[in-house]
């Protein structure tokens, strides 16, 4: 990525100093978030212009357009953006904690833990739906702990984490399938949830995910310097005064919380936590003080843009955004496999 120079700041391929480049990338990502909001609010079965949106935002009336913006598109866009932020942060944190470039809440099975817990609530105890987020969190955390214990043998080896994650994920996936087959009469909601989609997400969903997103964002930025030191390996991190085990557990819990809050709102939306932190890492480097904010912004932009695309590509049929993410994510995963491992 960077070229060698002697006394001046590191410059990238085009000769741009690193700090300037990083600031520029953050600005571009922020612009992408604005673009995502703009497209998500304007595009759809009813086209609404930017001027109309500005009118509606400053002076909400009772017009049909205002109803569409306030009750449908705005909450859906906000949920998409927050889910993008949470999943991207969870992925970025897990990649440092597990010391594995392929760690992502979906791949290593944390999402499946949240998924099984969530499907169980939806199918077995539909009257307790307000417990969905905490229960999904417990599911995610349990899955993380199980993977960690299975992969632990005199330290953490990246390959063992992935293998343990795949095994746990398959096991929990079987649980989800089992529930769906035994209770096939109640399965319609759960099925959409399995793919991950933003259809009919509204203000209650914003209220569910917002507190977790804010807490997660604040804690993630506090954790940045710890995550940086963890990248030097367990022994050096210990030598620098990091309580490695406690830091790992707390950061994994934070990632599980972020992932679980997303899963409880949009279902098993895969690949966001893998693609976004990597794309951000390719552009701003592996310093978590810059990587975390970049990943958060890029995550919000990716999900809102993908969801808009999913809504308009086959209109009037609406695809779940999870399908778009998988189409983007699977080739990207292969690209990473060839590049890094």
């Amino acid at each position: 990525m960077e070229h060698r120079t002697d006394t001046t700041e590191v410059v990238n391929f085009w000769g741009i100093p690193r700090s300037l480049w990083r600031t520029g990338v953050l600005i571009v990502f922020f612009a992408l978030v604005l673009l995502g909001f703009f497209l998500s609010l304007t595009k759809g079965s009813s086209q609404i212009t930017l001027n109309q949106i500005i009118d509606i935002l400053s002076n909400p009336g009772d017009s049909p357009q205002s109803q569409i913006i306030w009750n449908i598109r705005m909450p859906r866009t906000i949920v998409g953006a927050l889910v993008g932020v949470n999943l991207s942060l969870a992925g970025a944190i897990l990649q440092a904690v597990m010391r594995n470039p392929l760690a992502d809440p979906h791949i290593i099975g944390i999402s499946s833990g949240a998924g099984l817990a969530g499907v169980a609530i939806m199918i077995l105890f539909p009257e307790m739906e307000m417990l969905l987020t905490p229960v999904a969190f417990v599911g995610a955390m349990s899955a993380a702990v199980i993977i960690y214990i299975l992969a632990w043998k005199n330290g953490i080896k990246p390959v063992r984490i992935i293998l343990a994650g795949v095994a746990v994920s398959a096991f929990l996936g079987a649980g989800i399938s089992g529930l769906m087959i035994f209770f096939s009469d109640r399965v319609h909601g759960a099925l959409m949830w399995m793919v991950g989609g933003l259809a009919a997400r509204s203000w209650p969903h914003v209220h569910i995910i917002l507190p977790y997103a804010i807490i997660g964002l604040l804690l993630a930025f506090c954790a940045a310097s710890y995550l940086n030191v963890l990248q030097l390996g367990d022994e050096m991190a210990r030598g620098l005064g990091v309580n490695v085990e406690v830091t790992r557990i707390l950061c994994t819990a934070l990632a599980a919380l972020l992932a679980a809050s997303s899963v409880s709102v949009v279902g098993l939306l895969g690949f966001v936590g893998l693609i976004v932190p990597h794309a951000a890492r390719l552009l701003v480097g592996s310093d978590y003080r810059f990587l975390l904010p970049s990943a958060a912004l890029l995550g919000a932009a990716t999900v809102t843009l993908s969801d808009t695309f999913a809504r308009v590509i086959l209109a009037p049929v609406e695809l779940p955004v999870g399908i778009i993410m998988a189409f983007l994510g699977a080739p990207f995963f292969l690209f990473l496999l060839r590049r890094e491992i």
Partner: protein
Amino acid sequence: MTIIDVKNLCVSINDKPIVKNLSFVIPEHQLTAIIGPNGCGKSTTLKAISRILPYTGEITFKNKNTKSFSHKEFARSLAVLTQSPQAPTDITVYDLVEMGRFPYRSFLGRQTEEDKHYVHWALEQTGMLEMRHRLLSTLSGGERQRAWIAMALAQNPEVLFLDEPTTYLDICHQLEIMQLLERLNKELGLTVVMVLHDLNHTLQYTNHVIVIKQGELVCEGNPKDVVDKELLRKVYSVLADEFACSNGLRALLPVDLIKQ
């Protein structure tokens, strides 16, 4: 003066005892070498004292049990450089050295003027100031090792532990690192403890040596008295010749294995 006192140190890895009932002292403001054959427990001993590995026994730092230090407090007193440590490929020397200030940061702490001062000082001491904006991955082996030593110095420790600091370096860069450590010891009074393979480096640069074989102490003392061809025969089963160097010190050249 003793700065670290190790009593009855035992370390097991996978229930296999690696270090068995080791007791020795590390003198303050000296260069100490830990030597012994492969697998004798040198690195394990170093890691146990620096609290990287769990152990039984009692280790005191300035008469205070090391287990009573907080993690960060301990990292401010003792810096450790493990063998071939890893770092992200896109990290700059400056960012790496800045991580040495981690033990001085509070949970939300930002970089202070004091941090900047010590980072600058550590870069200066190791001759890395000019290269501070270079990527670590573009440096030569010797430069990279100096960058890591700068990171450890930025911790402003009283004791610096190094695990085979000259491995994979050519003889010129080996001497450069040894002379850097010698200078840091003389000028700053830094206590340096290192695992070494090269017995001639031990003779040339250190003034205290701890010899370990199969997890047990063979002897400790001044290398001029302790490290000789008799020790090579006993500890390494190697027959060696002794030579007098132009600086008045002794050099050892292994010439044959001793068949048992």
